[in-house]
């Protein structure tokens, strides 16, 4: 007689996350989504100003070769009190660099609970879900949720306009620089 094979205990799937603060509020992001962490000061020289109508959360853009990274003010994105961001997360596979107060710590989450369906507005694009950590609940952000395709189109148009003006008025550009 063959005995039934003992049930395999599958280890709980965990995910490495970074806990960070924006305007004092705690958020989490998968560490796999963060390509770089920079101090906001170190980027100030490299960033150029941009202004897209109706999009106040993006004021600067970083040029990296052919690529443009839009710096999103996390506090303005979430509708929190304006805060001077001290650090930047360059988010992998997006065109977003997120301005945050700072990193709290790195940890692992073992369970991501879907955002309850009662939350039915923009937050559904902002968050992948919620996780319970040390008797507190932290929203886990969606790296793609900071700039919608429509917002990216607006920013690209503003960028194109700025480039056009700069090429037409090189003196003005040199003054600005």
């Amino acid at each position, binding site marked *: 007689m063959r005995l039934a094979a003992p049930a395999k205990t599958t280890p709980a799937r965990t995910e490495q996350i970074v806990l960070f603060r924006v305007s004092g509020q705690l958020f989490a992001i998968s560490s796999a989504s963060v390509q770089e962490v920079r101090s906001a000061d170190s980027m100030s020289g490299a960033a150029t100003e941009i202004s897209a109508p109706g999009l106040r959360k993006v004021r600067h853009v970083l040029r990296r070769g052919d690529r443009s990274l839009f710096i999103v003010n996390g506090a303005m994105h979430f509708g929190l009190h304006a805060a001077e961001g001290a650090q930047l997360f360059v988010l992998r596979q997006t065109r977003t660099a997120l301005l945050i107060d700072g990193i709290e710590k790195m940890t692992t989450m073992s369970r991501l609970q879907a955002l309850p369906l009662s939350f039915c507005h*923009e937050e559904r694009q902002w968050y992948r879900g919620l996780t319970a950590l040390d008797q507190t609940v932290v929203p886990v952000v969606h790296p793609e949720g900071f700039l919608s395709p429509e917002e990216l189109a607006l920013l690209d148009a503003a960028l194109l306009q700025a480039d056009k003006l700069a090429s037409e008025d090189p003196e003005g550009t040199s003054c600005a620089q």
Partner: protein
Amino acid sequence: MTVSTELELQSFVLLRLGERRFAISAKEIAELVAPSRVFRFPHRTPKLEGVILRRGRIVPVCDVSEMLLGKRLTSRRFYLIVVRNYEAHKEWVAIPVTGECELINAEMTAAVESDAPHVAGWLSHDGDVIEVLNIDTLTPGPERALAEAAGRQRPEAQS
């Protein structure tokens, strides 16, 4: 042939919000719990305060007092955890209440067209006529968000 006139008694939970009492079908109640810490995070859904942790589940807290009384609650004694139906599944929602809850059996008179959407029906208890609440229209959800968005777009479409 005799016509049966048996009353169709159903179970309801009576809850208190400020000075008023409301009822919810007992079938839609998960539990009554003491207030616990509300975890708040940024979002754009009106009426939702945040979430509570209940036996490992994350439960949204929805204050319905403004819609029912026209003002927000200043104190709360319990959270009544109700079952909200969505198209595909059900989820818990915690509703803050200001007093003790009571389980009663009563006959419900169905709502009519002129009643507010949050009224599922009416029942008579202790000399009071009490609104039976329709949780699905009282608490936010994707279908309400779609309706609100359609409402916002309508005037633009007309202009």
